[in-house]
């Protein structure tokens, strides 16, 4: 068994709040359970961008973390654009979700430039959108998680939402959209962590990566009973 899959975690030093490690761990374990060999590379500010990348996972940070990485992100923008155009699967949560867009305009009017990979823009808001959230996606069914953000994100014409909000606030609390889908990228505000309780998304990322690299993906059956039960309970909890 030497079918390696290289996972790149973006900025774990500065953007790893709210259980983002859970997404990385879920992809790695499920790859293992499906019979592949996951290899994790971390990319932090100032590192050399790795040559072998099959899946990218990026998370959320505090405002201070975002300030630290925003210039560096612009420097690796070309790599990320090329990988996205080639169909590399990516999961981008919260802070990096915002910075993968066109810009983030903070409450005091400062405009932070994004890498423009996703056609969306974010505006700082006064209210923190916090709580359990359920959305419905035609690709993945019900997606269950927890949101915690004050930025309000609005999608442009070239992308579609990950899903429509059934309970919670979503991208901006107004238009009922949550997250984004573009090529093989999944962007979202949802923590929880997102992937453990939504194995369909984890397996989508894995399937794309494996198929691109090895031509076909033969999944094993994974016991997802705990995930199912955890979803049932989470869906019934107060906001």
């Amino acid at each position, binding site marked *: 068994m030497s079918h390696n899959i290289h996972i790149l975690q973006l900025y774990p030093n500065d953007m790893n709040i709210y259980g983002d490690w859970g997404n990385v761990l879920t992809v790695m374990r499920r790859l293992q359970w499906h019979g592949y060999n996951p290899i994790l590379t971390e990319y932090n500010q100032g590192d050399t961008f790795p040559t072998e990348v099959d899946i990218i996972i990026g998370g959320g940070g505090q405002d*201070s973390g975002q300030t630290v990485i925003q210039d560096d992100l612009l420097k690796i923008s070309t790599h990320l654009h090329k990988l996205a155009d080639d169909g590399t699967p990516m999961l981008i949560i919260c802070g990096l979700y915002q910075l993968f867009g066109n810009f983030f305009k903070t409450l005091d009017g400062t405009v932070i430039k994004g890498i423009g990979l996703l056609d969306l823009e974010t505006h700082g808001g006064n209210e923190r959108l916090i709580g359990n959230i359920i959305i419905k996606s035609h690709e993945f069914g019900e997606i269950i998680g927890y949101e915690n953000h004050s930025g309000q994100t609005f999608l442009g014409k070239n992308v579609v939402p990950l899903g429509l909000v059934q309970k919670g606030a979503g991208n901006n609390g107004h238009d009922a959209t949550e997250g984004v889908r573009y090529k093989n990228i999944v962007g979202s505000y949802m923590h929880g962590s997102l992937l453990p309780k939504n194995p369909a998304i984890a397996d989508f990322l894995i399937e794309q990566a494996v198929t691109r690299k090895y031509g076909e993906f033969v999944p094993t059956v994974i016991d997802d009973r705990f995930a199912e039960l955890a979803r049932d309970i989470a869906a019934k909890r107060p906001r």
Partner: protein
Amino acid sequence: MPKPYTTLLGKTVRSIARLRGGGSALPGLFVEKIDPTFVAEALAQLPRGVVIISGTNGKTTTTKMVTELLEAQGLKVFTNRTGSNFVRGVAAALLGEVDMKGKLDADIAVLELDEAHAVHFVRTIAPRYSLLLNVMRDQLDRFGEIDATAKMLSAIAQRTTEGVVLNREDPHVASLADKLKDKNVAFFGLNPTLSHLFPSDDELRSGSKSAKITPIADVTLEEFSDDEATFKIDITKYTTPLKLQGVYNIFNAAAALALVRLIVGEACDTDKLMASLASVTPAFGRGERLVVGGQPLELVLVKNPAGFRLGLSSFPASDYATMIAINDNYADGRDMSWLWDVDFDSLHKVGVSQVAGIRAYDMALRLQYDEVEISQVEPDLKKALRHFIAQHPDTPKRVYCTYTAMLTLRRELAKITDVEVVS
């Protein structure tokens, strides 16, 4: 002095609440409503003022330590020992202590306060001393972000009139000193050989601390074993036996020592200080040891990734049966993301006997991804506890639990063993 009718009415509500077996906060809430100045006026009488202890982890046990150390130095201390660390918890505790005229018979108040409540509290009552323990990822769903929590601690420090004690090893806390030039600042710290045991959240999964000049600490933890610890106070080393367990409790002992030294000043009797530290037992639910069926049962409160991780590393899993109980009520935090920032590899060898609580399946899912064996998942806490005790009659037991899960478990345990009643 508080208005007499407030005291009378408040005490009456407190008696009724206790008869009903109700919670400790209700009478406090009542008093807050009828007389918002009650707490401020009752505390204003104290000759040596108010001390506030805040931070993410270890407030309750540290407050207990500070209280007992001050008492050993001859002070009469008022404290809020319920762990109900909101202002109304303080009000409720006051009602139990003031006489009918509203007079509080104490020299000094040592109060543990949740960061957000402390900020509110210091606006009306400026503390004479404060001790700021740490800033960790906790209840982010309530406070937003770590930076916001650090700002709250900064506000407490700014309002403190005489002296502030800071954790030298926590970058968010230590840096508060830069803005406290006009106050007495004392640090507590660690011998560098121990610092690997206390990674800050920023270092969780990555690199080491950056080199910088560290301030000199008044008290450092030098080394420790299962039942004793060595502290360096000023320039002298003292070794003392301890009843406290867990690395974080022992580190917080350094915090308590530094605070008491600052408060008592030159009159401080160091030998007495160490002797009284040796007799401090953990606060309820903070590594508390009960006896069930002739076997020890330990309750370890977990409420954030750093605390859970420290708990797992403080109490080795071998020879113990383990239960984990996770609730997501408001006081626990609703967001389950934090479980994914805890590493459960240390439970890999022995597995987990019972996984319980409202979010039992979230916890089970977390353990599945660390490939930790689970014998049973039972969301109902009472049932899970019964199974857990029945299945391990001859083994010491340990329960990691969130706050509200702990309250339920203690209530159940009180039916079968001696559990200290804290009101």
